[in-house]
């Protein structure tokens, strides 16, 4: 095999507050033709910046301090903009994390698809359209002859991600950079995209750099894996070696994260009134029904995980419980007594009992208030504390979430890391002294190590305070780690519910089975085995569609 890309000793810097801060410190990598390299690391490790640098591209506010990027004989760090434009899109292509944001909303898919081949004079317009349809078919997009004539908002996320892979393939590039292409997708959709990407990369012998934070995913895609930590290379090895015998402690810790589990709690005594009981709830946005006849209980002091793909109605169920969306039918009982349907009619005490923690701690915290003020707000509002009593309570809460008050109380949310912000979200919910907390995808935006810390904290608080959690997530590993019982939802209905043991051990409901088997495993052969067991035409989303929720 011949060498395609050589990055040697590259230093990248990003400007923040007028100072250039290092992002990548002297990383080198090589890539042969047709080879797939996995780049793995947590957010902030500099994976994306390095991936873009491999294209000779830096974002605004980033610069290449030193080092070289040699693509097939062309030195990209010193090449003119024109030379680079001649390579980008034509010989080096990019697949971004969010296809929904990376497709231009103003143009049809096919028009965006043919732009690179037509502009680079690789193919004529009509040939490009024909080729686009062919690629759509290879990537198993439904109705490949017509799907390209839709606008991005008319196509689902998984389909867009495949259309973007098709777009990257349009000029048959030698190298594609995949930047977390499946991170935003549900597990069942992810499989489809992974399978499609791998197949087409093999068919055309394209070399690729596959960037992700998910080890199990990279294990399916890459020939070699390179681990990054805060801009430094930790280690590199071929996939099987890396999985079986990681050398560095950091890599081992990444492997170990999925080991966190809680001891099984004794079963809830029969006849005990559940803390919250959702009874036959149907809810709708306008005319569109999003929940249909949903019933489940949340016992005091337990964790009920609500799992399902996006659009399955998990968050809507939470909105019904909090009273933000009054149900059309059915009711919510709290401690055996019905709650008013809308939050406007609930008493302060009823509101206090159920608190929420949100997925995006970034947007859920007021950026102009200090951490102390953010937590003091609900203490004042619900508990009516003032002066030193208020201060002491806020300090207690900060200690509970393991952020020392003297260091953190005066800081602004922007001065905290993602995990710390999520902890503040937890403290704010605790401030109301609730009996139940709804956790809406609270660890989805976090790296695995950080997410584990949050899960441990939530578990500790539950043991100390006897809280009930309604834990909304699409990540089954998280469910395994902390749930006592599980509710599986699809298309606004509950398809299966029971204790964790009941749901996770066979026999499964077919949809639960699909969800469980779609979670990538740390085995490089996992995807192959799964695809061959399911049959090529029965993967992911399409399989999910075939399972009727009524069964």
């Amino acid at each position, binding site marked *: 095999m011949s060498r395609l890309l050589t990055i040697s000793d590259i230093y990248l810097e990003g400007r923040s507050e007028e100072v250039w801060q290092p992002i990548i410190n002297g990383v080198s990598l090589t890539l042969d033709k047709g080879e797939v390299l996995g780049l793995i690391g947590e957010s902030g490790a500099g994976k994306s910046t390095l991936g*873009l640098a491999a294209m000779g591209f830096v974002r605004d506010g980033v610069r290449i301090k030193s080092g070289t990027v040699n693509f097939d004989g062309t030195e990209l760090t010193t090449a003119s903009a024109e030379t680079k434009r001649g390579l980008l899109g034509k010989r080096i292509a990019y697949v*971004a994390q969010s296809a929904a944001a990376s497709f*231009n*909303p103003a143009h049809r898919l096919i028009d965006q698809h043919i732009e690179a081949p037509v502009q680079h004079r690789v193919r004529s317009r009509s040939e490009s359209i024909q080729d686009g349809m062919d690629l759509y078919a290879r990537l198993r997009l439904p109705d490949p002859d017509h799907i390209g004539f839709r606008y991005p908002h008319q196509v689902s996320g998984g389909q867009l991600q495949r259309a973007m892979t098709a777009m990257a393939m349009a000029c048959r590039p030698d190298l594609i950079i995949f930047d977390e292409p499946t991170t935003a997708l549900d597990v069942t959709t992810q499989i489809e995209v992974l399978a499609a990407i791998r197949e087409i990369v093999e068919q055309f012998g394209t070399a690729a750099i596959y960037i992700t934070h998910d080890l199990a995913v990279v294990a399916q895609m890459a020939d070699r894996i390179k681990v990054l930590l805060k801009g430094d290379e930790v280690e590199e090895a071929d996939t099987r070696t890396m999985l079986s015998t990681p050398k560095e402690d950091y890599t081992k810790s990444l492997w170990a994260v999925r080991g966190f589990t809680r001891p099984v709690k004794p079963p809830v005594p029969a006849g005990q009134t559940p803390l919250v009981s959702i009874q036959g709830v149907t809810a709708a946005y306008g005319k569109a029904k999003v929940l249909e006849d949903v019933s489940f209980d949340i016992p005091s002091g337990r964790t009920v995980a609500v799992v399902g793909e996006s659009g399955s109605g998990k968050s809507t169920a939470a909105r019904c419980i909090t009273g933000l969306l009054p149900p059309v039918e059915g009711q919510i009982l709290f401690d055996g007594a019905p709650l008013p349907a809308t939050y406007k009619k609930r008493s302060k005490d009823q509101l206090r009992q159920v608190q929420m923690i949100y997925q995006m701690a970034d947007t859920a915290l007021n950026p102009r208030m200090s951490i102390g003020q953010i937590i003091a707000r609900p203490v004042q509002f619900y508990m009516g504390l003032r002066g030193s009593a208020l201060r002491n309570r806020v300090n207690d809460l900060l200690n509970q979430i393991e952020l020392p008050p003297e260091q953190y109380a005066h800081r602004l949310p922007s001065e905290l890391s993602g995990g710390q912000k999520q902890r503040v979200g937890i403290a704010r919910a605790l401030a109301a002294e609730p009996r139940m907390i709804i956790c809406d995808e609270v660890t989805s935006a976090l790296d695995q190590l950080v997410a584990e810390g949050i899960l441990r904290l939530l578990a500790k608080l539950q043991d100390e305070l006897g809280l009930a959690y309604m834990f909304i997530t699409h990540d089954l590993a998280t469910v395994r780690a902390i749930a006592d019982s599980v509710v599986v939802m699809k298309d606004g209905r509950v398809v299966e519910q029971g204790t964790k043991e009941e749901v996770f051990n066979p026999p499964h409901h077919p949809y639960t089975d699909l969800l469980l088997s779609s979670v990538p495993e740390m085995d490089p052969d996992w995807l192959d085995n799964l695809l061959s067991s399911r049959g090529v035409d029965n993967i992911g989303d399409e399989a999910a569609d075939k399972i009727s929720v009524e069964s």
Partner: protein
Amino acid sequence: MSTVLRIILQRLALGLLTLVIVSIVIFAAVNSLPGDFAQAILGQAATPEAVAAIRTQIGLDDPPVTRYMLWLYGAVQGDLGISFAQANFTTFTGSSNNVTVADQIAPRFANTMFLAGVTAAIAVPLAVTLGILAALYRNSVFDRAANIFTLSSISSPEFFVAYVLILFLAVLNPILPSLSNIYADMAMGARLKATLLPALTLTLVVTAHMMRMTRAAIINLLASPYIEMARLKGISPLRVILRHALPNALAPIINVIALNLAYLITGVVVVEVVFVYPGIGQLFVDSVKIRDIPVVQACCLIFAAAYILLNLTADILSILSNPRLRHPK
């Protein structure tokens, strides 16, 4: 398509409602002006008897609500009434061929529209092109020069800009006439030539807004992932801006263009006075001076309608520029 149609119909109905409310405000405001037509026209000779006689004759003694209803009833049918000056003049001379407000305003309005049209034809393409180029070469010398030039022209008073242009284009280099002598059956070329100086003045006044909004709306989008994607496809910078940024930046640009076009119809009094351009602005100011209420009301109504109509058009075009609304799921 039905969603778009429904939104458009909703906006039209809202626009109509706004116009009715505005007409009430106009009527109330005009009628609360101190002094009245009778006193203004009689001047020194305003004996109480004479004032009373004229007031009765032109209906100023009726209660305001009645007068408003009568006026609205007429206005809906396209009859904006007869100017007080005309009514007074015809009874005085005994002739009966009344010139209606509509007849009076029509030629003036046509002139104003002509001036606005010429200005828009120069200013809009100029501003949008400058804005696009400024976005393309942002922070370059060109960008700064364009910014400084347009900002200084918008910050100078209109009459000053007008006199500077007269100095250079009419006095020092007599290319264009300094007075806009417009009459009814003028040849198109001569008319254009006479209109050009006021049009250039107005161009300098309105370009800055539109240019800066075009630049800002485009630059605002340049950090979007789909722009990065276009750049990573090796698309040339100009094409990135024209094809990927501009279509998504249209809504704010259209809105600021509409506001400036409305200004060209309603806010050009000063420029009309400087160039003695026979537009609706001058008529309006003259009518306010003598408290000729029907004319003032009609002018105000036209101004309001122009604003509402242009903003409505901008709204509808913005909606149409959004593919999510044009092509629902």
